[in-house]
């Protein structure tokens, strides 16, 4: 088997095993219950943040942008649920995620979404959110909104595609030649 110089999926699963997470997740209802939590979190995230993104892209201008922004905490709560439930999936089957091209693309989409969040709150959120309702939305903010919507929808889509791959260890793109 090839050696992974960066990640040690076996050690991660051993951690899950030692902490009881593995046992819980592989009990009769562990995985389905956490998938349910994950899908509820997904709905909260897309429902709140997706709507805010669409408004900032220029749709539904009758709605005050700042008013929609007050619902973003619902999306943050959904994201927190998903980090929790997603973390339980990941540690219970680390190899199935690390070497899965759908997971790699999902992680990339999350990274882009995360950088985008930082860009929004450090460079433009104050100006955009304090503007009058008729104020035109700056082009940069529309781009940030579009990137946010596409990257979060990408996270959902790639996440849903995860189960179509059962990656063997030799799918590891960054591992050295077999030893």
């Amino acid at each position, binding site marked *: 088997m090839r050696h992974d110089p960066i990640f040690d999926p076996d050690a991660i699963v051993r951690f899950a095993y030692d902490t009881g997470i593995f046992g819980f997740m592989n009990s009769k209802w562990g995985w*389905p219950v956490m998938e349910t939590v994950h899908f509820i979190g*997904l*709905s909260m995230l897309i*429902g709140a943040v*997706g709507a805010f993104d669409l408004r900032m892209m220029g749709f539904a201008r*009758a709605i005050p942008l700042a008013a929609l922004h*007050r*619902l973003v905490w619902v999306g943050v709560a959904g994201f927190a649920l998903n980090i929790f439930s997603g973390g339980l999936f990941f540690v219970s089957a680390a190899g199935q995620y690390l070497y899965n091209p759908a997971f790699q693309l999902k992680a990339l989409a999350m990274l882009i979404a995360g950088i985008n969040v930082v860009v929004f709150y450090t460079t433009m959120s104050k100006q955009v959110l304090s503007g009058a309702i008729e104020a035109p939305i700056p082009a940069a903010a529309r781009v940030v909104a579009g990137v946010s919507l596409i990257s979060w929808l990408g996270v959902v889509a790639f996440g*849903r595609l995860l189960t179509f791959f059962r990656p063997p260890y030799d799918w590891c793109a960054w591992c050295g030649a077999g030893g």
Partner: protein
Amino acid sequence: MSMMQLFAQIEQSDISIWVRESLWAFPTLLVAHAVSMGGLAGGGMILALRAIGFAQGVPYRALGWFVPVMAWGGFVASVSGGLLLAGYPAKALTNPVFALKFLFLAAAIGLGRFVWVRSRGLVGGAGLSADVRWAAGFSLLMWVGVIAAGRFLAYTHRLLLVS
């Protein structure tokens, strides 16, 4: 014709075989169903949370914008869900959890509609009556139920005529 013969006949139709055997049909339908769920259930949960009393600074009329989002989500979810059902009618229709999902869905939409009709005209700090807030609370619970039942469909079926 018995129910089971009908299911078997549907499962031999072109569209049913396409859903199951095309390389991209099933994954695409699942992605469409998950994304549209985000729009429909997400919008429904937002409306319910506002009516319960969260985010009081948000005017009710601002929430009207979630209605078309939910409508689009509902449309895409119906089409993708209908095709998924066409792929595995016996698997879904012999599972009581599937009926439960639609019971929850009807309740979530019915209660949500009631809450929306009673709240959309309110302005400023006008409050909602207790019955409307209770309805909102139950609709939130029903949305959670729809998602939970839907997710559990993958684990609770007892019968597969095709794979």
